[in-house]
């Protein structure tokens, strides 16, 4: 009985989460550009996707920035989280609150403020400034993901390691990090998710050099988003699913993936 309830509940949740994805996939085969009607089945949009120079360029930068931003913010965020965890009192609260600011600020404020900062500092807007901006809004999420795991850590474990003769560096690498690994991974996942999707901040900090998928898609809003974008989203989705299934097969022995 309980298993059935669990299955139904998760089923509903997944239905909820995937309803828009399915809708998009369906529309990627729609001859009509409009979301209001079905104009017939076609694979044209997929064909057009490969010929489109702008989309390929945008896709490249989107992935590049997302991967780099995730790597950098995860490393910096984890280190910072560990540091913050061992702080106390006023300075700890201060840092935590400032850390929350990029999360609570509307994108437009962060984007415009950063742009103004970069320009005032005489920096040319481009790939680097966009990367900095992405790292900026990703780190707080990594910290928020890693901190609870640090709090969950039995503080005696680290002490025990030191007592047994480990250097703080060794204790960090071999004791603390493995314990908080799920937090690090989930922080990285969230960072990647945010970076892939960002429009406003990217638009203002990217200058005229680079673009990303979000900028392209939002720019299409006025004329109607080309279904090639739906085709792209569908392909990306399928790619990710296949990758996940492959990785899952590889860890056949039932060992924990990363989480």
């Amino acid at each position, binding site marked *: 009985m309980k298993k059935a309830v669990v299955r139904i509940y998760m089923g509903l949740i997944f239905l909820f989460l995937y309803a828009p994805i399915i809708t998009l996939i369906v529309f990627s085969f729609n001859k009509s550009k*409009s979301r*209001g009607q079905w104009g017939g089945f076609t694979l044209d949009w997929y064909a057009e996707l490969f010929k489109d120079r702008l989309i390929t360029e945008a896709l490249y930068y989107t992935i*590049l920035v997302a991967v780099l931003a995730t790597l950098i913010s995860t490393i910096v965020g984890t280190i910072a989280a560990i540091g913050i965890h061992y702080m106390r009192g006023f300075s700890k609260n201060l840092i935590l609150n400032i850390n929350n600011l990029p999360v609570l600020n509307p994108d437009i404020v962060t984007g415009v403020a950063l742009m103004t900062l970069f320009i005032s500092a005489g920096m040319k807007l481009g790939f680097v400034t966009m990367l900095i901006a992405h790292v900026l809004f990703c780190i707080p999420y990594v910290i928020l993901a890693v901190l609870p795991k640090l709090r969950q850590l039995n503080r005696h474990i680290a002490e025990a390691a030191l007592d047994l003769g480990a250097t703080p560096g060794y204790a960090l690498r071999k004791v603390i990090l493995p314990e908080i690994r799920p937090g690090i991974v989930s922080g990285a996942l969230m960072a990647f998710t945010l970076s892939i999707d960002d429009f406003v901040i990217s638009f203002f900090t990217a200058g005229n050099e680079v673009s990303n998928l979000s900028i392209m898609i939002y720019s299409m809003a006025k004329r109607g988003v080309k279904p090639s974008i739906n085709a792209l989203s569908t392909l990306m989705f399928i790619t990710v699913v296949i990758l996940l299934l492959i990785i899952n097969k590889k860890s056949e022995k039932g060992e924990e993936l*990363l989480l």
Partner: protein
Amino acid sequence: MKKILASVLVAAILITMAITLSGCGEEQVVLNVFNWGEYIDESLLDEFEKQTGIKINYKTYDTNETMLAKLEAGGSSYDVVFPSDYTVAEMIRKDMLLPLDFENIPNFKYVDERLKNLEYDPENKYSVPYFWGTIGILYNKDMVDDPVDTWEILWNPKYAGQILMKKDVRDAMGASLKRLGYSMNTTNYEELKQAQQALLEQKKLVAGYYGDEIKDLIANGDAAMGLTYSGDFMDLYWDEGDFSHIGFGIPKEGTNLWFDCVVIPKGCKHKKEAEMFINFLLDPETSYKNCITIGYTSPNVETLNRIRQEQPEVFELPAFWPDDSILENSDVYGDLGEYKSIYNQLWTEVLVD
């Protein structure tokens, strides 16, 4: 797992190095073009590059305002930009544009005479028209049985909950002003207050304030009518789906004539090449291809003649080819100057109410 992470990191670093290094040592001229999304036949970019050897770095934006904000802030230079009429006026006022050297743009002769020297660029020094049209009422013929030829229909209680309004301060205030018989560029506070009052009264009849989603909502039958621009109707007309049940009405009180233009902003690094590109856009062959792909009304007389021969029925559509009577009665948006903030404040109050 560690190995995978390590290799991804190395790959990423290598790729980054490759890009930054490839940037150096290139002597080729690169033109930075900034346009609306989906607003050009992309094959034309390849054609231009092949013809002239000038590479095009093509970036896009979603609204005049975001484009303007980016340009005003500095930090990135663009050589060719495509603002709408009122934005051109604002950019001229803020001294953001370079005057065009028409010696380099001989194809300007193909532009319809009536589309030169308009309100937003009175001496036609800075801009060249790109596409133009009107704003009006997009409607579902099955859901509306009154004639759609007046702004009043958007205020008709019969269609309560079926009306969509554009979330654009100029278009919404403009429609309200025109309905009361005032100019869309008025700076008379009394008139503006009346227009605002009308919009506030209309609010309970309005299903929602949308931007470009209006055409999809009406096409889907979610609403009966909405304030849109002629381009939205043309998008549906040219679309593969069957939208014969959708119509576009232009109010007899008069409406707005919009123009999307091409300009060269200050900070342009390659003016001559930019003018070459503008000339290229005005070439009859290019203009024709662009017009067929995008579907809006071209300013190029040669292109229009050719389309009139090949597809005369398109010229029956008021959304593509409005009557002279409509053109006479219509306002082109000019720059509001300091009144911009008053329009904005009144409009914000309507939305927030």
